[in-house]
């Protein structure tokens, strides 16, 4: 059962993507650690973290593509699941600081000491254990997606209305996490991390390992997504996207279909956030900003929605562009991003990957439909 799922997932495109990602996971750290700094193929340290960050963005965009590209759920709140996963990881990293914080409290993180809290709030229990944090990284975003989706999909909220309430969801979380009383560091969020799983978080080897972990997580998520969209369930997803009420009349429980894929997607977004936080060294409520979630939609649209590869390409390209652009002309970045979105919508409605694969498949197959049409006319 599982083997046939994996077997179906591994079409040629998936094998390529996974091979490239696993190759990157091995090669990039090697080029960083094994080669001397002056070598032409040496990958500098800053590039490792930067590329690692792009890969977590790519994972977030992939998660969005699963719900948007295949099931037509335009979530404008996926940043919330990303941030929740990030906070779960941040809480683990905070507890790893221990007595090394500014105030030297062995249990309480600095911000709690600063707020005069006497003991650890109950929801911080267990986060000193990595396994517990790892479970929470998928469980918390998954649970939120489940509760949100349960009500939204059962009430048949679709289209733009659903998009608006996902925005409201992430905005509400933004406001909540800003409050100091919430117990997540308020405005400043969680930062000052020292180590992860016992390794210093600033060390070159740790950064290289986090890069590899991001690449491998993306590869694993790609395998899962590919398996989902190539199964019969994937066909149901597309059926729901294209003709929701028709699929109901064929006996499909649309709300369950949507709920499942929304929860899976939220969990992937949570993992992305958890890998993002140790690489950038901070998580704060700004990650819940509605604009962040909208940016994810742009990456996915630029790369090509409903392709799985597209969002990865889009996330990496747009963010690389952002890194270059914000350094060169900082005040123009948002205009460039807006122009990019408009241009893609007008000229490349299927995104970069969609347009490329359209070119690739059209050429060799061109003679075939002609023959078929001729046969059809003859029959009639």
């Amino acid at each position, binding site marked *: 059962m599982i083997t046939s799922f994996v077997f179906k997932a591994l079409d040629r495109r998936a094998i390529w993507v996974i091979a490239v990602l696993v190759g990157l996971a091995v090669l990039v750290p090697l080029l960083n650690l094994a080669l001397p700094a002056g070598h032409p193929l040496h990958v500098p340290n800053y590039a490792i973290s930067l590329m690692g960050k792009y890969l977590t963005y790519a994972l977030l965009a992939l998660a969005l593509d699963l719900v948007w590209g295949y099931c037509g759920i335009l979530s404008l709140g996926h940043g919330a699941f990303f941030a929740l996963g990030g906070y779960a990881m941040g809480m683990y990293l905070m507890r790893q600081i221990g007595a090394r914080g500014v105030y030297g409290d062995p249990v309480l993180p600095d911000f709690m000491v600063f707020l005069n809290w006497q003991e650890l709030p109950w929801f911080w229990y267990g986060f000193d254990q990595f396994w517990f944090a790892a479970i929470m990284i998928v469980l918390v975003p998954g649970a939120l997606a489940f509760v949100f989706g349960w009500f939204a999909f059962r009430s048949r909220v679709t289209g733009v209305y659903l998009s608006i309430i996902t925005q409201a969801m992430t905005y509400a979380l933004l406001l909540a996490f800003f409050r100091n009383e919430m117990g997540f560091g308020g405005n400043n969020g969680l930062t000052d991390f020292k180590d992860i799983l016992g390794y210093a978080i600033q060390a070159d080897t740790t950064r290289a390992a986090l890069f590899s972990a991001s690449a491998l997580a993306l590869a694993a998520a790609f395998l899962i997504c590919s398996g989902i969209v190539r199964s019969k369930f994937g066909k149901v997803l597309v*059926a729901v996207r*294209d003709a929701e*009420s028709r699929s109901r*009349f064929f006996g499909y429980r649309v709300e369950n279909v949507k709920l499942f894929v929304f929860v899976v997607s939220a969990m992937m977004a949570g993992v992305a956030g958890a890998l993002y936080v140790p690489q950038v060294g901070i998580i704060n409520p700004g990650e819940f900003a509605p604009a962040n979630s909208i940016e994810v939609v742009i990456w996915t649209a630029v790369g090509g929605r409903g392709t799985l590869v597209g969002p990865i390409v889009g996330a990496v390209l747009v963010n690389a562009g952002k890194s270059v652009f914000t350094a060169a002309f900082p005040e123009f970045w948002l205009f460039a991003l807006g122009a990019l979105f408009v241009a893609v919508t007008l000229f490349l409605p299927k995104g970069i990957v969609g347009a490329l694969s359209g070119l690739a498949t059209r050429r060799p197959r061109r003679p075939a439909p002609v023959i*078929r049409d001729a046969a*059809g006319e003859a029959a009639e």
Partner: protein
Amino acid sequence: MTKTAKGSLLYLDGVSVAFDGFKAINNLSLVLEPGEMRAIIGPNGAGKTTMMDIVTGKTRPDTGDVIFDGEVDLTRHDETDIAALGIGRKFQKPTVFESHTVEDNLELALDRRRGVFATLFYDQTQKDREAIDRILETTRLTARRHERAANLSHGQKQWLEIGMLLAQNPKLLLVDEPVAGMTDAETEETARLLREIAQNHSVVVVEHDMGFVRELDVKVTVLAEGSVLAEGSLDHVSNDSKVIENYLGR
């Protein structure tokens, strides 16, 4: 009341529904026997499509009983439940899954478990393949099996949808204007398909095209202003004075 519903496949009694005060269905009663094929005719706005919406769970009636298979109260179920109970529906405008191939459309419609995990780990069996092949043959779409449904002609889309309903294998099939916009040859072909289906399914056909209804040669119910005007053979109802006045005469 359920006593009279016993033994019938579909039983509507005193059904009314109003939209913003307009009575789309007004005290409608209709009984369909198992295995029966029935044609429903009537002028525009007679409530034909609304009646189908009520039976398939899209619209809830304000009053009245809708009983399926002698015992199931359809007003308590939604579209998915009703489809699972064995009522299939063909829409006036052909609605197929456009970005799927003809074959995948049939696979999706096929009468198999439809849960999330059942579909996630579904493997097409030999039996399923044969069922799909058979339906492709019946609907004359074998040559186009790998074509995306969006590329089919209007008539072929209609047949694909009928094929999908065959795959769904419902006890009762509701067909809404299957030959609207079809050529004469296509209409004839559709009548053949429907008669084939009627051999082992109960079918309700809503239609405007009198020639087509004559070709089906079944019992006819005439609807007007949300209620039944007359019922019987086509010749019988077309000689009915009320029908002539309300529908044919116009």
